[in-house]
């Protein structure tokens, strides 16, 4: 096996390594008053990690941190106010939703005495232009239109309250 002069020189003196370790610690104690206690004190462990893990690759760590900052900035810059899901809903939508909830509750609780409260906001369901939608057709909500009477399960046994005239 071939070796470089450096390898030959260092290997030929490797027997002195234990003496050099001892010598090194003596110098450290004499000059800095510290022995090798890196494994017993958290501060020394942190310092050792800093010196051996972070500091030698400080440019790589800095690059990584910069990349994270750029990603965060990019994310924040793409967040528009309109994208916020927590924005308050349109009052008309809320009113329509509440109306549907009340209708549903009325259907479930008093299917035979369906009526709408008088203080409802403007009805959203359109009045049929002529004859109204066929049975089973979906009704498109139109602003300003009055709701069609809802056909409940007790359609066959209509009460006076089911008459459209009774709604007004």
């Amino acid at each position, binding site marked *: 096996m071939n070796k*470089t002069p450096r390898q030959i020189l260092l290997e030929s003196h490797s027997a*002195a390594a234990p003496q050099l370790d001892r010598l090194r610690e003596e110098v450290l104690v004499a000059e800095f008053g510290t022995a090798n206690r890196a494994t017993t004190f958290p501060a020394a462990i942190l310092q050792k990690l800093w010196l051996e893990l972070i500091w030698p690759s400080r440019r790589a760590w800095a690059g990584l941190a910069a990349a994270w900052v750029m990603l965060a900035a990019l994310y924040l810059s793409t967040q528009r106010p309109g994208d916020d899901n927590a924005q308050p809903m349109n009052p008309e939508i809320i009113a329509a939703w509440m109306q549907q909830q009340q209708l549903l509750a009325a259907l479930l609780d008093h299917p035979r005495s369906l009526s709408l409260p008088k203080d409802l906001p403007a009805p959203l369901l359109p009045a049929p232009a002529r004859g109204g939608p066929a049975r089973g057709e979906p009704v498109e909500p139109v602003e300003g239109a009055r709701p069609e009477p809802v056909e409940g399960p007790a359609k066959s046994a209509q009460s006076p309250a089911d008459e459209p005239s009774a709604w007004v």
Partner: protein
Amino acid sequence: MLRVAEPERLPVAEARAGAAAAWRVLFRRYQLPLYAYVFELVRHEQTSLDLVQAAFVRAARHLADLRNDAKFGSWLFGIAHQECLQHFRRTGREFVSSDLLADLPGGDPGPDQILLRAEQAAEFRALLAQLPPPQRAVLILYFIEDFSLDDIARVTDAPLGTVKSRLHHAKRALKKLWEHKL
């Protein structure tokens, strides 16, 4: 010669701030190459350990003098080199020798391009020991840390031309000794 290598990252700034852990990292990195360099010059084990220790102490006390953190290695070797010179002066040994200035021929092989068989290691070191100390110092610095000529000039406190000359003659002498041995 073009050298393209990732610069070694060492906690020199932390060491300057007085962090003992940083000094431990630095000493651990250089203790063996430094010892090898010193030993190849003084050829005595205990003296080499003492000189390395003295170099570490001086480095710990005078790091503020280092202007360029990237040159910590050559700066530390320079301190060790000065310790060796003082040792030579104390013991009355001669280190300085006259050198003929000569430019290095082009296409010189780098230290990592010179390969020796494992069984030749002892012979290589024996031949190295036969070189005059100044040539040996330059050649070891060149081999062991792949220092540039500027760095070697800084370590040995010698003009660049002198370093070129010493390195050239050291290589030539080593080659001649090697061929003679074979």
